[in-house]
């Protein structure tokens, strides 16, 4: 409901209206009242919020089952007011597979960080997508291991300083940033693969559209939808939230360009 209103903002700005104010945005009821434990300015919370807005608008709160990872978002189930399971580190997509296979008519999503999905969980990630499991895989790429205190992730940038690459990531020693979404595109099981951001309003709007699509495709049993969000980790990056905006735009997006990587051909 609210959604319609503000998604049209871009066009509607400046049209004439009358006096009585109406609410055009508020915290979705699909979020619990528990305040987020995330660090100030963390993208996880924004993604949680958008995801739950989508669930609310589609009216699928009762049919949606989420899988939380091991990572800072391990507590996603405290905030998302839907049935959820907390998976072992890296296995969220295997857990989601287990759920979806026995409840094929429910909406199922996995939510994972880069260490979870692209390091320890690489095999599960690739085979879940290769099987074309009819789920949404949400991938929060903040280029670091947030929960454990800022260690290097497979997605960390060359030269990025982390607690396990204190002198900057050296490709010769530990390889290059892993663009796993690009690899997944090669798999027929991947129906829709897109990379989004949440550090500005436009990005949040686009992410929301992408998630709406993903659930729509899942309803149509199209296969795996993979939505990557290039996000931040102010604590791990040792920056203020505002500083992370610049870092994302100048450092991360050139390596992880925003946009659809694979769209349904028709």
């Amino acid at each position, binding site marked *: 409901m609210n959604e319609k209103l503000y998604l049209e903002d871009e066009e509607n700005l400046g049209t004439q209206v009358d006096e009585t104010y109406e609410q055009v945005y508020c915290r979705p009821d699909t979020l619990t009242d528990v305040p987020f*434990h*995330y*660090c*100030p300015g963390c993208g996880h919370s924004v993604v949680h919020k958008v995801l739950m807005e989508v669930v609310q608008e589609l009216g699928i709160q009762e049919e949606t089952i989420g899988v939380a990872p091991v990572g*800072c978002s*391990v507590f996603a189930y405290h905030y998302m007011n839907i049935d959820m399971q907390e998976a072992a580190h890296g296995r969220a997509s295997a857990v989601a597979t287990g759920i979806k296979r026995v409840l094929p008519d429910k909406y199922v999503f996995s939510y994972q960080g880069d260490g979870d999905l692209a390091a320890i969980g690489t095999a599960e990630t690739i085979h879940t997508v290769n099987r074309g499991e009819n789920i949404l895989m949400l991938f929060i790429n903040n280029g670091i291991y947030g*929960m454990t205190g800022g260690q290097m992730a497979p997605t960390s940038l060359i030269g990025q300083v982390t607690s396990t690459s204190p002198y900057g990531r050296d490709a010769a020693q530990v390889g290059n940033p892993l663009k796993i979404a690009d690899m997944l595109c090669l798999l027929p099981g991947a129906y829709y693969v897109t990379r989004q951001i949440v550090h500005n309003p436009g990005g949040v709007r686009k992410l929301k559209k992408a998630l709406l699509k993903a659930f729509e495709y899942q309803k149509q049993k199209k296969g795996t939808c993979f939505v990557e969000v290039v996000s931040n980790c102010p*604590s791990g990056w040792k920056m203020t939230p505002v500083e992370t905006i610049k870092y994302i735009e100048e450092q991360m997006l050139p390596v992880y360009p925003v946009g659809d990587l694979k769209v349904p051909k028709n």
Partner: protein
Amino acid sequence: MTKEHEIIFAGFGGQGVLSMGRLIAYAGMIEGKEVSWMPSYGPEMRGGTANCITIVSDSRISSPMISVFDTAILLNQPSIDKFEKAIKPGGLLIYEQSTAVHPPTRTDIEIVCIAGNEEADKLNTKQVANMFMVGAFLEKRPILKNETIIEALKKALPERRHNLIPVNEQALLRGRELVKLADTVSA
């Protein structure tokens, strides 16, 4: 003076509570005492609060993790709420004035309020705010010598920051004074 002194330092991450606790432990070690320092660790830090427990003892220390303390040095409201009740009767609570919305209320412990931030502004250097608290603590519980604190500081700080030693020493002494004043006041 007890053979064993158990202190908890608590505040927001970034206020330097961990290094304050480590400094005391380090000084204790220099004076040949048994010491242990135990930080709170893990995701609860996401919430923004941090604390550590320092034990200085004449005998071998059993567990570094304990739930009641001789002294609590608290730098924010959540910490006061959480640890005021964890102080042993007759124990000591030192807190920072500007951050305390609801000051501690226990009557069976000694309570000292230090305007650390304000004083730091006077010396116009934020970094030493905690030294006032340390000074205050040592005035109340003379378990370690000033010199050892400074020596510990020398070891703890990288060479390039040794220029900060004097101002820290100043703050340390000032902290001791503040307690005396506070006392005369409360008296």
